[in-house]
């Protein structure tokens, strides 16, 4: 783990998140928690005309869990649930150290969390939002 990990990009999403707020009329909502470290995120989405029209999160947690949620929402808003699930799959594989460079590019900014794969203790923080996303969407898509 390196000094430089808390790079601007993570700090930026953590300190000035774009999507950290409540969606008053969200159709879908799910809470994800990491008991061991206390990260706690509630993810909200609205799906309209087959795409994720709106998305937001609230919660507490470390910079990685918060930045990861914020980056994820940046990426998936405007996509179909299937596309979002595809991206979640890439992200989760990235954290396991099992992706191609092209796939990482698809993740845009969220690809900057690739280093987490070398930080076992933080893996849970990074994947929390994405697992929560899977939980919401798998129920929808099925």
């Amino acid at each position: 783990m390196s000094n430089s990990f808390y790079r601007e990009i993570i700090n930026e999403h953590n300190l000035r998140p774009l999507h950290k707020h409540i969606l008053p009329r969200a159709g879908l909502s799910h809470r994800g928690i990491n008991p061991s470290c206390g990260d706690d995120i509630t993810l909200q989405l609205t799906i309209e005309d087959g795409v994720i029209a709106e998305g937001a999160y609230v919660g507490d947690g470390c910079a990685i869990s918060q930045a990861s949620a914020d980056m994820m929402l940046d990426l998936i808003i405007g996509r179909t649930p299937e596309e979002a699930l595809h991206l979640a799959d890439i992200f989760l594989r990235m954290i396991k150290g099992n992706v191609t460079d092209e796939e990482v590019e698809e993740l845009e900014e969220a690809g900057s969390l690739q280093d987490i794969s070398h930080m076992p203790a933080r893996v849970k923080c990074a994947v929390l939002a994405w697992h929560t996303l899977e939980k919401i969407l798998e129920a929808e898509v099925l």
Partner: protein
Amino acid sequence: MADLNIREDFPIFRDNPSLVYLDNAATTQKPSCVIEAVRHFYECDNANPLRGLYDLAQRATAVYEESREAVAGFIGAASPEEIVFTRNASESLNLVAYSYGTFLREGDEILISVMEHHSNLIPWQQLAARSGAVLKFIECGIDGKITEEAFRQALSPRTKIVSMTQISNVLGIRNDIKTFARLAHEAGAVFVCDGAQSVPHIPVDVQDLNVDFLAFSGHKMLAPMGIGVLYGKKVLLEKMPPFLTGGEMIEYVTREGATWAELPHKFEAGTVNAAGAVGLKAAIEYYQIVGFDAIQKREEELSELAFDALSKIPHLHIMGGSTAKEHNGIFSFSLDGVHPHDIAEILNADGVCIRAGHHCAQVLMQHMKVPSTVRASIAFYNRDEDILRLAQSLSTVRRRMGYVE
């Protein structure tokens, strides 16, 4: 006690000279005499103790039982029979909850404090669920203090067991066990003391405190992992049923039933961890060579240093007592706007080892209304430099997380 001499006794610092280890409340590092004692056992005395008649087995038995005597002496027990070897403090507490717990009936009360470690909390919750007893909590103030008044109020004629930590693993505060044990006895309850954080740092005398049970772990006091202690008063241990059953803890066995071995063997089922016990004895001898006076003096110095240094860091808030003395080398704190895990990660990048999380004390966290904290905890082998590096690293955290000041 010179800074450096002591440190040389701990091999881990040889290969990691710049390691700043401030997670001593989780587990301590091991001096070479302990590591060597374990090796020596396996190279010279290894046999299954208590079972064999041959010299090697007798030696294994002798060193195992000498370890028990060393422990009895260390905590002032009336006799070695009162010392049961377990795996760790958690198992010791479970033993009491399972075994002494069989005496509890519906409506009886178990009293613990809100600052208990999960290991001194969940066994009682489970016992309450099994027996129909009621688990009650004594509150502490924002400074961590449990007053005599609060304690008296929480006691009732139905209180059968009181269990409390002597030193909190989160706040570092020390509870007045002697007074609380006396009050518990007056109310007709037994008093269980969780010594996991106290036995390694202050002299503990079970007869002076007059506690009925004392639980602690070897690994938090320089000894190997996998060895812990339950002290229990003989009269109580004698009337309690066994907990784990199997080899070594029996007298006669037939198809229909069994009778139990004498104390302390009744409570030690299966092959014992003799090497662990021998390691614990070596640790106790090391404590005796360095001396508790020197250890306490040094830990107080380091505590003062840490309290001062942490107090000066902007946006940092120490939980609990407002003087160094109230912390016994344990400091939990928060830093505005930065999650404890991020702090731990950044400190790690600077080679400083501290803990972040709930410290196995979620009920205390709820009581104090914080989700988690950072904790630095001291041992006598820490250097002044360790504290300074902690403070220095901490003072850069907010900037490194993107805050302007």
